[in-house]
């Protein structure tokens, strides 16, 4: 964790272990605490954190972002592994409502 020239808090992630999607989702989820600028530098994602509260604890913010990135990565993994089953459940649920038949019958 470092401070950039404009005093924004900076943390980095290895592009080989963390996905951009997870980073963006994490930035969205912590938007009530800070805004996050994400850039790529070589094999690192560089995240600059801009706290909404100037008195916010920098270590706490960095922990929060790292924790959120891990959770979002896990959520993406669960979604990828269970996506086909999820689609199957929805397909089965709607297949017996008659709604899908009505839609199919339309010219």
């Amino acid at each position, binding site marked *: 964790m470092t401070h950039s020239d404009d005093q924004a808090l900076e943390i980095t992630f290895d592009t080989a272990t963390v996905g951009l999607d997870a980073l963006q989702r994490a930035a969205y989820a912590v938007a009530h605490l800070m805004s996050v600028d994400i850039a790529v530098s070589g094999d690192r994602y560089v995240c600059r954190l801009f706290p909404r509260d100037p008195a916010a604890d920098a270590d706490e913010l960095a922990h929060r972002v790292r924790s959120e990135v891990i959770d979002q990565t896990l959520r993406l993994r669960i979604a990828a592994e269970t996506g086909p089953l999820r689609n199957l*459940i*929805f397909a089965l649920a709607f297949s017996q409502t008659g709604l899908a038949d009505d839609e199919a019958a339309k010219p």
Partner: protein
Amino acid sequence: MTQGSWQMLPIRFHRFDDDSILLTNLVGEHFFLSEDEFLAVMDGTCSDQVLLARLRARHLIQLPGERIPVELLAVKLRTRLRRLPDSTGLHIFVVTLRCEHTCRYCQVSRQPSAKSEYDMSQDTARRALDLAFRSPSPHLKIEFQGGEPLLNFPLVRWIVAEANRLNQAHAKRLTFVIATNLALLSTEILGFCAAEGIYLSTSLDGPADLHNSNRRRPGQDSWERTVAGIRLVQERLGPDRVSALMTTTEASLGRPREIIDGYADLGLRQVFLRPISPYGFALRQRGGAGYDVSRWLAFYDAGLDHIIDLNRKGVPMVETYAAIIAKKMFTNEDPGYVDLTSPAGIGLGALVYNYDGDVYASDEGRMLAEMGDHTFRLGNVRNSDYRDILLSEELLTPLQQSLTLSAPMCNTCAFEPYCGADPVFHHATMGDFVGHKAMSSFCLRNMGVFTTILRRARDDSFTRNLFWRWAQQ
């Protein structure tokens, strides 16, 4: 099950409290486990057979190739969504904007009692009834609102008679509710309600000083009139024919016990601890709101504590919001509460016919219109048919954009099966139908309520059984 021999079903997780993670599935079945247990299940190294069996019983994992869990989840999902094809069930008739109260937090641009140009006409009411009976719902609830609907009682009487006449051809289950402050309740009105099986819903904010400070009228006797009205309805029509709602103002925040005890003293068995609405006149006046979500949640928690204590002592009392959520958490039923459904309840759960014939997607949409924002105006009874209204862009766009299964953060939120989409709230407070969930007070408030209900159910068997009983109502 041997290591790695199970397969995750679609689940979502939430870091609940210290070392406790909440897992939920698509239909809200849930389970708490520690972080170590969670990671072991995720990476396939868990060897705790009891834990795995519990997760499997709740349809959070399955054996590879199993078919029954998927089919059961599909049935449960279909059960939860079964109300959708039957929309719309609730039809709100704003029979007048006139009111003799001047409540500090009033959501409606009320008009003085003498201004009859703000009354709904019989022609408008007839056209609104025609629309209401186009609904495929087998159950129609017609609710009279205002203003104070009893100031236009002749029209209420006419609508009930006309609806009953129309229903001879439709054979729907028809119920009527008058949302009234009860100040104008008369023998004639009471006799009519008795004869027609009409329910009365009123506002009771708590003890006399609090209620009369919030709900002002000439003579400063709103509480006295409301309480007398509740007793009269209970005696003449029966205890289940009148219910009351409270609105939390800043002055309420330190008094949850008094408010609830007041309900119990009146023999009321339900109290709905409602935050103040951010709409319409209330927003303009900022009538006594002045508190943030965390203070309301503290009030709600203290109120729920007291209600549970009353039940422990043998005094039956239900908190309505917790009961709605408990049904979503502990059964496969969706209670159809318009603020906690996805697709959103606007239009599909309720339609509002304003005094001038304008049709709105929700009561809150009408309140926004009173402030000059007509985003949720779907048409007018004079020139729109049912299809125009239900297929209008003004309805379909917010419905489509706000679906919780696709909205950012909602789609991965463990509380999604218990929650709902509220495009009107987010439009009013954040300027778009989805809102930014990390900064949404709707999200913060509901996550707070879900958390307190789940924690109480997890940690105390009496409370768990109480919530289960509420869920069965």
